[in-house]
């Protein structure tokens, strides 16, 4: 240094041109490397990283949405099943009620049938009994009359006719009595 003292130092505020040139050259290289190669390269990777993170989040979101959808569909199916069950129960109830009503009707019908059959039977029995009674009464009366009269009334056929006529008269009388009463009442 000392040997340069004779010349006097340069003003430190005045740039030395070769230094300016070297400085700009170095800065230019650095800027060019960053601008053309290094920053695009790292930016790409940063973008990829961001996408990877966001992609993961998107995937998680999609999974969640799917799970929610599945749950929703299960719920729907469950509701449907419940609805179906209720409907089936209702139908069964209705069917049961209908069955009971039908059976009751059937029972009623059968009862009436039995009753009417019974009535018919009774009527038939009564008629038969009446027929038998008529014969028996006729026979007994004839017999009794024969005994009382002391002679056998042999003409069976004629006897029968007589008895029949008598009984018919009796029946006619019996039938006429209420109507006669009714006629008397009307008068």
């Amino acid at each position: 240094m000392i040997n340069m003292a004779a010349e006097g130092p340069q003003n430190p505020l005045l740039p030395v041109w070769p230094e300016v040139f070297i400085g700009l050259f170095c800065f230019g290289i650095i800027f060019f490397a960053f601008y053309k190669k290094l920053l695009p390269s790292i930016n790409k990777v940063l973008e990829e990283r961001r996408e990877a993170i966001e992609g993961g989040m998107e995937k998680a979101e999609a999974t969640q949405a799917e799970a929610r959808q599945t749950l929703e569909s299960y719920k729907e199916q469950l509701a449907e099943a419940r609805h179906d069950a209720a409907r089936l129960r209702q139908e069964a109830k209705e069917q049961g009620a209908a069955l009971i009503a039908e059976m009751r009707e059937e029972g009623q019908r059968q009862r009436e049938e039995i009753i009417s059959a019974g009535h018919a039977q009774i009527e038939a029995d009564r008629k038969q009994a009446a027929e038998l009674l008529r014969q028996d009464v006729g026979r007994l009366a004839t017999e009794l009359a024969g005994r009382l009269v002391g002679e056998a009334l042999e003409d069976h056929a004629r006897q029968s006719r007589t008895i029949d006529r008598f009984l018919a008269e009796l029946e006619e009388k019996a039938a006429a009595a209420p109507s006669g009463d009714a006629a008397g009442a009307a008068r």
Partner: protein
Amino acid sequence: MNDQVLAFETDCHLFQECGFPAPSVWSFIFDPIFSVGPIEFNKAMLLALLGTVAILSFFWAAFARPKVVPGKLQMVAEAGYDFVRKGVAREIMGKKGEPYVPLLVSLFFFVWVMNLWAVVPLAQFPVTSAIAFPAGLAVVVWVTYMTVTFKTNGFVGGLRNLCVPSGLPKGIYVILTPIEFISNVFLRPFTMAVRLFANMFAGHLLLLLFIIGTWYTLGTVVGTFYSITSFALALVLTVFEMFIQALQAYVFVVLTATYLSQALEEAH
């Protein structure tokens, strides 16, 4: 060799009938390593080239084949890149700052590494204390600033952007317009260069002062006490200088981003 590496007289000590070899402007002037005609290749240039190689190799190793899952080197480089991109460009310029990120990133790391040479053993000379380097960068910023201003606003709009701040009473403009013009067009690049240069220049002088003091006072018993004190201060100031180096690099890119953001502002 000593004349290139050491910035002061080494064979002089306290009480030896020779004065304290105080650091001076001479401490920033080195004998050329070699000369090509009138062009002298000096220590600052060498360090600038070495620093460029260092920056390029570091970022090349980190960013040339980057991975989605980063390694340690890539992570550190990404932190630096993010600091400028998010902390400066996004913070000051917003979304519009994205195209200027490469400029800001290269400015930040270039200035920082050139400052950092001040504390690298054996080199120990801040490249940016030679005004040529900050001046060159300031010119780059100025050219970008002017280009962006006129490209965004057109010629008249660009002039208005540079000279007429909006929203002030009419009378003020008579005074303010020339001041704004001079400030924005001439003073800004000048102060930008000088701020960086002066900080590094003063920092280097300060370190030199205490390191030379450490050496100069060494030798006698009394001197050794001075020497130890001086050395302790040199250590403290070295740490402080490292802080200032990073801070000045940050200030440089913040100012650049501020100017560009102003240039991108639409005229009102």
